[in-house]
């Protein structure tokens, strides 16, 4: 019996048959995997053959909330999108902020399973528990912000929406899933899977309550956690002041801020694209996701120049970096414009920026011939960035189509795959492993390709400075801890940023009082480990192995040329074997029977 937190209902939408079914949430699964990422992964693991083509009809997409979504738990607005990712071929889980997740709960559902393929474009309307698949031909082709507007026009002005843009429709491997046109579940190409299913999106509005199992205890847990977050200097003030882009100066100051496709890791012009500058030049106001006391979201506008008047959400630190420094660009207006465009097309800003950077290096080195480039793709050119993003988003010309497949496939096409700054074909985020050793191990072992939010060791290696970023010792444990914590956290429905203030115990307390499950810190971390291993099992079955747990040769061999981390390379081998051992896996990175038994994953 579900006592609280969860609504206890799952919506299964078969696009092939048009059938929509309501199923019960399985309590034993909820106990073992919580909701969100964990529960969604379990469904994908059980129902989707890991070897399928991610863009085939057989793939499924889970849109999931967690048990803390729709409550007053801090920052509980996350929505998870789980599928087999087309960019990587791995299990994929991307998540976004905003208000969609809570709205889905208020409409009566913990998660939605999208399966099959519609003959014609459709969208799903969920209203107070009543559902309907409706034609979406006239929204197909529209940008995500337009789509959001039309969906709300067609359904309810106060509906929360989820949508793909032209990138997803055209099955770009960089396609994301957007929420209300400005919050993104960005990575691994999840939007392309929906596009392949002719599924434009969801509009949802509900009227149901979300209950918690132990209201009084939950109230206390909420006050306590909100208080901790308010007192913490970052979550209680700094984040609201500068947004995530505050990190530009931090990472650059330690010389781990990759520039020009990671040819170096120090950007002399960083200040021009920093959070401080963004605040001065472009910030209109802060925006917060559901129930979030941190409020890191930016609403910005371009005040002058060619793009004057353009306005939107963001950019986040990662986007400022990928579209800025990584392309050698210090023109903040161009970066903002590129960021807004990515959102409109429904493209992951990180992968898009890094792919542009890759194209620029290919071009400058002469590997990408001039006849393939409609204009010079030179590092540092804001105009080239914006135009390249348009090519990519609209898949115009030969280059546009190539760009839309991401940096790896682009570089491979031009015979230099080593110039793709990616792991398992997914582009790097904004941290140079050569300057922060643990994050390199995290990139290499992440279950969805290069990624910072599967295990944000930056918090310990750089921000709190609890461990030395340049040492290799202890990083395997550190990475495992962060990975497990995040996997469990992503399953509750609250935001990763809460962990700057909250520990596993605090989150476990929120979870326990909301659901009535007795989960302590230890159990919570174990749930995370269980999810992590299940994701690994999926990837192993999909054909991934130790050889894929690696980093681009540049990171392993080319020392950083300038700045505070000058001379550093990443010696991944010093950590990888250790990591497998800490995880209880064999030398090939395969979880042993003992580990699977311990995690109660054997039956599967």
């Amino acid at each position, binding site marked *: 019996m579900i006592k609280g937190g969860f609504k206890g209902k799952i919506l299964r939408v078969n696009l092939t048959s048009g059938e929509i079914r309501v199923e019960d949430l399985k309590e034993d699964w909820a106990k073992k995997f919580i909701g969100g990422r964990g529960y969604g992964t379990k469904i994908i693991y059980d129902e989707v053959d890991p070897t399928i083509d991610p863009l085939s009809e057989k793939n499924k997409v889970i849109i999931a909330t967690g048990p803390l979504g729709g409550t007053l738990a801090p920052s509980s607005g996350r929505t998870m999108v789980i599928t087999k990712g087309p960019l990587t071929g791995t299990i994929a889980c991307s998540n976004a902020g905003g208000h969609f997740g809570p709205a889905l709960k208020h409409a009566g559902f913990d998660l939605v399973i999208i399966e099959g393929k519609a003959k014609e474009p459709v969208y799903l309307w969920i209203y107070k528990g009543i559902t309907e698949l409706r034609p979406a031909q006239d929204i197909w082709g529209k940008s995500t912000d337009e789509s959001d507007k039309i969906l709300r026009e067609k359904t309810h002005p106060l509906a929360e929406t989820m949508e793909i843009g032209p990138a997803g429709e055209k099955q770009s491997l960089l396609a994301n899933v957007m929420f209300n046109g400005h919050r993104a579940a960005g990575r691994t190409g999840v939007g392309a899977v929906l596009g392949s299913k002719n599924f434009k999106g969801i509009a949802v509005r509900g009227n149901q309550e979300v209950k918690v199992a132990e209201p009084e205890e939950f109230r206390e847990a909420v006050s306590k956690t909100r208080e901790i977050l308010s007192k913490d200097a970052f979550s209680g003030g700094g984040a609201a002041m500068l947004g995530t882009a*505050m990190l530009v100066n*931090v990472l650059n100051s330690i010389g781990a801020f990759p520039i020009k496709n990671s040819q170096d890791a120090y950007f002399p012009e960083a200040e021009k694209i920093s959070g401080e500058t963004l605040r001065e030049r472009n910030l209109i106001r802060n925006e917060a996701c559901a129930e979030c006391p941190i409020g890191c979201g930016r609403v910005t506008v371009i005040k002058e120049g060619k793009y004057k008047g353009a306005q939107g959400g963001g950019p986040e*630190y990662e986007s400022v970096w990928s579209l800025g420094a990584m392309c050698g660009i210090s023109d903040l207006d161009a970066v903002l414009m590129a960021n807004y465009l990515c959102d409109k097309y429904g493209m992951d800003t990180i992968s898009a920026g890094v792919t542009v950077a890759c194209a620029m290096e290919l071009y400058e080195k002469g590997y990408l011939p001039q006849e393939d480039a409609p204009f010079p793709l030179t590092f540092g050119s804001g105009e080239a960035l914006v135009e390249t993003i348009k090519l990519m988003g609209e898949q115009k010309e030969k280059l546009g189509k190539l760009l839309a497949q991401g940096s790896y496939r682009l570089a491979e096409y031009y015979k230099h795959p080593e110039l793709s700054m990616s792991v398992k074909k997914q582009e790097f985020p904004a941290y140079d492993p050569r300057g922060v050793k643990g994050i390199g191990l995290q990139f290499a072992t992440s279950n969805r390709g290069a990624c910072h939010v599967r295990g944000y060791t930056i918090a310990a290696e750089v*921000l709190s400075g609890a461990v030395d970023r340049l040492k290799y010792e202890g990083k395997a444990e550190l990475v495992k801890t962060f990975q497990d914590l995040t996997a469990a956290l992503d399953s509750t429905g609250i935001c990763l940023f809460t962990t700057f203030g909250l520990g596993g115990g605090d989150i476990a307390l929120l979870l326990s009082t909301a659901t009535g499950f007795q989960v302590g810190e230890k159990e919570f971390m174990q749930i995370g480990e269980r999810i992590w291993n299940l994701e690994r099992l999926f990837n192993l079955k999909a054909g991934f192995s130790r050889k894929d747990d690696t980093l681009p040769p540049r990171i392993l061999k080319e020392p950083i040329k300038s700045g505070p981390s000058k001379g550093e390379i990443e010696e991944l081998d010093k950590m990888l074997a250790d990591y497998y051992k800490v995880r209880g896996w064999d030398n090939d990175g395969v979880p042993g029977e003992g580990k699977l038994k311990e995690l109660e994953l054997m039956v599967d």
Partner: protein
Amino acid sequence: MRIKVKAFATLREVLGKEREVELKEGALLKELLSPLYLPSEGVEAIIDSQSGEIKPAILILKNGRNIRFLDGLLTKLEDGDELIIFPPSGGG
């Protein structure tokens, strides 16, 4: 000797964006982080007045290296060093 001190984010309000400080040769970080050389509000934001230690999660870099992994407050400064101070931060 001259040391460059840069501050970011909220600390800019109390320390200024960037300044140069003139110190005697061989001075330690501890000596620099005093009202003698920096605005007292700035020092208060960095140093816990009770314990005299650096406040948790304040990040101080000397030439890009976290001073925690050098000699902490006893880190020796040299002419031309660049000191960067961040308030607690996070990101993603």
